[in-house]
């Protein structure tokens, strides 16, 4: 009976979902160094992990919407006094796109609207957290090849 109990506990432990699901993104050129430790994407300076979706198949001159999720509530609280700044930039051509619209649904869920990739090539989505003095305290760059 004791053995059956231990077996069941082991089974349960094996089925438990990890705290941070490993993101199996293809390696993307231009992404700033991010250690894939316990979370896929991370604002390193803040120690905040997040996932994003909506950029799986971006297309030229078609609006993309991005959802950012910070699964850990305590990490999301760290961002309370900060402001998210997000913009698209084409590093090889040296220009951006139209201003993005940021919608904070709750501390752990943020939507980015109005992402227009006006031409093919390499685009960077900059996700910056700024403090009250408008200084960037953490940045993550998503590289997107169209």
């Amino acid at each position, binding site marked *: 009976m004791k053995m059956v109990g231990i077996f069941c506990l082991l089974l349960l432990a094996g089925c438990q979902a990890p705290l941070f699901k490993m993101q199996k993104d293809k390696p993307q050129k231009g992404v700033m160094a991010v250690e894939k430790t316990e979370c896929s994407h991370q604002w390193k300076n803040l120690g905040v992990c997040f996932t994003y979706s909506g950029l799986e198949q971006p297309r*030229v001159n078609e609006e993309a919407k991005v959802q950012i999720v910070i699964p850990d509530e305590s990490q999301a609280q760290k961002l309370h006094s900060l402001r998210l700044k997000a913009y698209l*930039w084409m590093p*090889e051509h040296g*220009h*951006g796109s139209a*201003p993005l619209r940021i919608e904070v649904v709750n501390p752990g869920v943020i939507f980015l609207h109005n992402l227009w990739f*006006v*031409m*093919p090539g390499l685009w960077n989505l900059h996700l910056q957290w700024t403090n009250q003095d*408008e200084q960037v305290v953490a940045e993550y760059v998503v590289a997107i090849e169209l």
Partner: protein
Amino acid sequence: MSWQLNFSLGLLVLLASALVPRASASSCCGGSTSFPALMTTDSKAQFSMGLRDQWTVADAARDGQVRRRSSSSRDSIRASSLTAVAQLAEGVQSAIQIPVLSREVVAGENPGWQTDLGDVSLLGSYEFLPEKTYSPWKPRGFAYLRGVVPSGQSVYEAQDPLLSSISGQGFYSLGVGAAFVKILGLWDLNGHAEWRTLWSRRYRLEGESVLISPGPQASGSIGFGYSPNGTKVRLGLSLGPAVTGRVAFSGTRPDSEARWVWDATFSTSYLFTDEWMAAVTYRDQTLWGPARNTPLVREIGLLLQHRISL
């Protein structure tokens, strides 16, 4: 003798129509060669009205790989321009060119359309190699300065989603160059080379004041023409590169990459009278390379030109 003089004059006038410059009409980042606004005839003044339709067909990556644009995504520019050239003294000319650009970007069901003033350019030239006596080889040579005022809206100011409001480069620039023309019987040859310096300017990007320092630009062309039917018609072909230097940004943004593109231009001109002419041009950036880091365009242009004799 008089028919020979008329013939030469006709060729000069036709050549002038083929050499009328284009207004700079880059979508976001394309470049083009642009022959300076010069009078190659003995005229007091010359007025040109141009209309061009330009559309982006492909993009050249940094490594030179060319990718065609999809048919659902259209990016076209309609540009009209007025150019006036006047002779100030013997061999000294000045010109002004005022472009108006309408840009249409269609992406599926999302069209963007806007019309704006483009970058106005001013030109002063001096004929340092006049053709006072006949020479079988010596061309006429013009040295010039071309200034561009950023009266159009640049990519750093455009706010609309499809960036259809871009109508200029966004920087003051000064170009120095030389142009040559030579008539050899039924044939003519022409060429130019220009070097441009652009001044840094501050723009507000994402709420941040950024000093943007564009690198130098260079362009050139060589071309020839043939008049198969007396002086009434001229067929021309020219080829030339345009190079745009890196753009540097203050702050954290990285420098952009340099851009290369080649223009191949075919033109047909028709001389109605000694004072009126028309030309049709076709320009294609996909025919010659290498092209680097730039959109590639095709263009059809119409030109009507009137000159006032001395």
